[in-house]
């Protein structure tokens, strides 16, 4: 059974080793191997303190295991090469199926790379001169740790898949993934602590925590074997084995549940009166507000934005730096924009209804903008006012009154424009399984909208920086209004002129710019192919190689210049809380700092606008070039 499933999985993997998939797999494998190699080098190096390699490896293994546990939730899906549903009609007991699938779970690139990474355990045992017995314990621990990692990953993914069918679950998942991303993005805060630890060793409580995590039990066993404490060795190894068995049992139970139960549907909803919606635009806004509260995906995104902003801005308080706190509201607005720029893609083929109503495109776009502002603006303003009141940073008011309205207006404009110009097709809402993990987030889009929305605040930023005191708020408000109006108008015009093409794109999941044969249109098919990132998505298939490279390079590099080397050091200089780090301008003499920052921002904007301009030109061109699916309806 397990052998058969492993053969099946190998066959599927072999068939999918084509083109981009193969490239992705190889890139992933090489990156993983590099990281694993890093761990092995870490284990084999000489360290000033004897306990240091164990603590470092403990941290490394903990992070590695965390990647296994949460990677599927963050990046969608998990390994579903062999779906249990495929075997549900065969005469296996769920438990036998779980054994087989568990066996197949160990086949693949990721388990192999993990095996290499965990073999650092053996290396560290040899390096410490613990003797043959400890090395043998290390080998056993490597195998057990791999088993725990793979099975725990299956279990956590299955649990999240079940939990995320409810609103509370969606919020919880959003909280967890937002906390992890935000913590990673602000981990620079911890760098002084880490540098100190590398010289003088980690504090004892930290080492104790690292060893107490299941990812550290292998290390505990090896160290105990080196010191001849065999009861500890036995306990640690038995703990790992027991955990593996427990994970398998839990996963098998969930597998049975997945195969034998369906979600309840048709739960009554709370119906608000919606009396305030009396015209076309307010009707659309009221509809959108209902979607924000009733759609698990949108709700999940909203909670994610809130949690990200809170964690990112609160974390520096750990080292006593409230510098980011007043910007919590602005960051929230920015992230809501980033995760809500696929409005038409999320609604799916529902677009047809608006196409049948003359003049609906304009009302629809304006109504969605209004709803976005109604959802985003109140928390943004509340967070901003509360944070300023808490920190007493009233000196920041020119910045906040300029940037917050600019971001809100820019966000209201960018989200609808990107929704129309670059929709990511998703399974129609009524055909979704209810498991949010099935609809992976398109990170290219999130990143693009983050940059674009942040860029809309640039005029307000320069107005505060260079103009008199009143200029910032005025430019921020006027710029926000103007951008919301202008970008909304562009979106509406575009929607009016190309709605049939957009509908076809959303319906077939095939972009009009793709020229190669696409899957036949089958409306009964439950899942659209997952959106894949790449040149075709940017509409660059028709661009010459040089321009294609320029667009990709400029859109990748521009934000380094614009945000990391421009806006962030500018904020630091403005607020007086300077951390030099890798910010070029801050290492230069004082009279060169502002010119450098302005040059960086200008260069970033030039790259952004030219990259976008060329990209959009080819996007439009490839859309006009039409669609070529192999099979029509």
């Amino acid at each position, binding site marked *: 059974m397990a052998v058969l499933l492993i053969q099946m999985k190998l066959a599927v993997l072999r068939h999918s080793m084509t083109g981009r998939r193969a490239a992705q797999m190889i890139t992933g494998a090489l990156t993983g191997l590099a990281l694993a190699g890093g761990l092995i080098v870490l284990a084999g190096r000489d360290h000033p303190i004897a306990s240091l390699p164990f603590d470092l490896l403990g941290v490394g293994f903990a992070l590695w295991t965390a990647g296994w546990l949460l990677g599927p939730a963050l990046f969608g899906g998990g390994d579903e090469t062999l779906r249990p549903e495929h075997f549900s009609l065969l005469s296996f007991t769920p438990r036998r199926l779980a054994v087989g699938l568990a066996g197949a779970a160990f086949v693949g690139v990721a388990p192999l790379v993990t095996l290499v990474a965990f073999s650092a355990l053996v290396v560290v045992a040899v390096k410490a001169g613990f003797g043959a017995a400890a090395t043998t314990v290390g080998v056993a621990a490597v195998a057990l740790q791999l088993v725990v990692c793979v099975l725990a990953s299956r279990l956590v993914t299955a649990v999240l898949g079940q939990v995320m069918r409810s609103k509370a679950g969606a919020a919880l998942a959003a909280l967890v993934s937002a906390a992890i991303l935000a913590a990673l993005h602000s981990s620079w805060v911890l760098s002084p602590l880490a540098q100190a630890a590398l010289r003088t060793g980690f504090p004892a409580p930290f080492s104790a925590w690292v060893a107490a995590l299941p990812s550290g039990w292998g290390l505990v066993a090896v160290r105990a074997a080196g010191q001849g404490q065999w009861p500890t060795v036995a306990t640690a190894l038995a703990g790992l084995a027991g955990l593996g068995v427990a994970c398998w049992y839990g996963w098998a139970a969930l597998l049975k549940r997945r195969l034998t139960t369906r979600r309840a*549907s*048709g*739960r*009554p*909803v*709370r*119906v608000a009166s*919606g009396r305030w*919606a*009396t*015209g*076309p635009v*307010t*009707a*659309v806004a*009221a*509809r959108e507000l*209902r*979607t924000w509260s*009733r*759609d698990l995906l949108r709700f999940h995104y909203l909670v994610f934005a809130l949690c990200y902003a809170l964690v990112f801005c609160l974390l520096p308080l750990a080292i006593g730096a409230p510098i980011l706190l007043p910007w919590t509201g602005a960051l929230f607005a920015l992230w809501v924009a980033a995760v809500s720029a696929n409005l038409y893609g999320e*609604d*799916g*083929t*529902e677009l*047809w*209804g*608006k*196409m*049948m*109503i*003359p*003049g*609906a495109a304009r*009302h*629809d776009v304006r109504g969605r903008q209004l709803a976005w502002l109604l959802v985003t603006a109140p928390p943004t303003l509340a967070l901003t006012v509360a944070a300023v009141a808490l920190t007493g940073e009233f000196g920041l008011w020119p910045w906040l009154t300029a940037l917050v309205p600019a971001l809100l207006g820019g966000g209201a404009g960018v989200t609808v424009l990107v929704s129309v110009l670059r929709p990511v097709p998703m399974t*129609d*809402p*009524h055909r979704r399984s209810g498991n949010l993990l099935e609809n992976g987030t398109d990170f290219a889009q999130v990143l693009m909208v983050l940059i674009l929305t942040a860029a809309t605040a640039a005029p307000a930023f320069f107005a505060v920086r260079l103009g008199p005191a009143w200029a910032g708020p005025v430019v921020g408000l006027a710029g926000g209004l103007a951008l919301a109006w202008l970008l909304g108008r562009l979106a509406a015009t575009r929607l009016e002129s190309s709605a*049939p*093409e957009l*509908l*076809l794109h959303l*319906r077939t999941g095939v972009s009009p710019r793709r020229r190669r*044969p696409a899957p036949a249109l089958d*409306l*009964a098919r439950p899942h659209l192919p997952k959106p894949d990132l790449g040149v075709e998505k940017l509409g660059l298939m028709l661009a010459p190689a040089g321009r294609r490279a320029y667009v990709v390079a400029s859109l990748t590099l521009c934000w380094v210049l614009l945000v990391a080397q421009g806006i962030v050091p500018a904020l630091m200089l403005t607020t007086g809380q300077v951390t030099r780090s890798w910010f070029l301008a801050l290492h230069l003499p004082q009279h060169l700092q502002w010119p450098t920052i302005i040059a960086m921002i200008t260069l970033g904007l030039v790259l952004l606008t030219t990259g976008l301009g060329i990209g959009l030109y080819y996007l439009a061109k490839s859309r006009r070039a039409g*669609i*070529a*699916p*192999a*099979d*029509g*309806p």
Partner: protein
Amino acid sequence: MGPSSREAALRLAALTKTFGRRTVVDHIDLEVPRGSFFGLVGPNGAGKTTSLSMAVGLLRPDGGRAEIFGLDVWADPARAKQLIGVLPDGLSMPERLTGRELLRFTGLLRGMDVEEVERRADELLEVLELDQAERTLVMAYSTGMRKKIGLATALLHAPRLLVLDEPLEAVDPVSAATIKVILKRFVRAGGSVVFSSHVMAVVEQLCDHVAVIASGRVVASGPLEAVRAGRSLEERFVSLVGGQVPEMGELAWLSS
């Protein structure tokens, strides 16, 4: 130019659509007389959905014209679309609204008056027996309920032509009966209906005009009796599209 009294309810002229190298709709000409109950029949993949999508402005044709009461759908969409109500097959609706909310917001988006929208929504929900599901989202509706709320949305602005793609597909007999009654009433009141189906019995039961489409072309069109030519519609259909009864020589291991 307003819709004159002589114009056909729907006229397709040389309408064409190609996907890649495959021509799905091949210069279709079709005329739906006003006041008629018009059935469009054809095998799966014949081009019915594609033709109807192009006829109402949801899919851009590669060539040809589509006119609603003499108004070009693609040149003057605003006026043409006022006159039609559409029920597509398999497409999504605003799924996270209840039936009543869907009707209310659709009416308001059409620029209708609040009181009028509510009055019509009340009546439609009652006639279509959807008023029991006040607090159920469209997403959780059964197939029959989905078709009925779709029909209500199509009727809300009192159109003069209904274009329905497989309105009775996978619908239970009770809901189907309700839908049929409403459509007949709509035609009696002077409206026109075009609907596609591959169930011949339904078409024979409801329609006074019929067109047979196969491989993207119209192979027969006209009053039902004329197209049937003295036979049942099913026999005539099979002979027109060139189907044949499969021979049962293989799969011998199936018989026990």
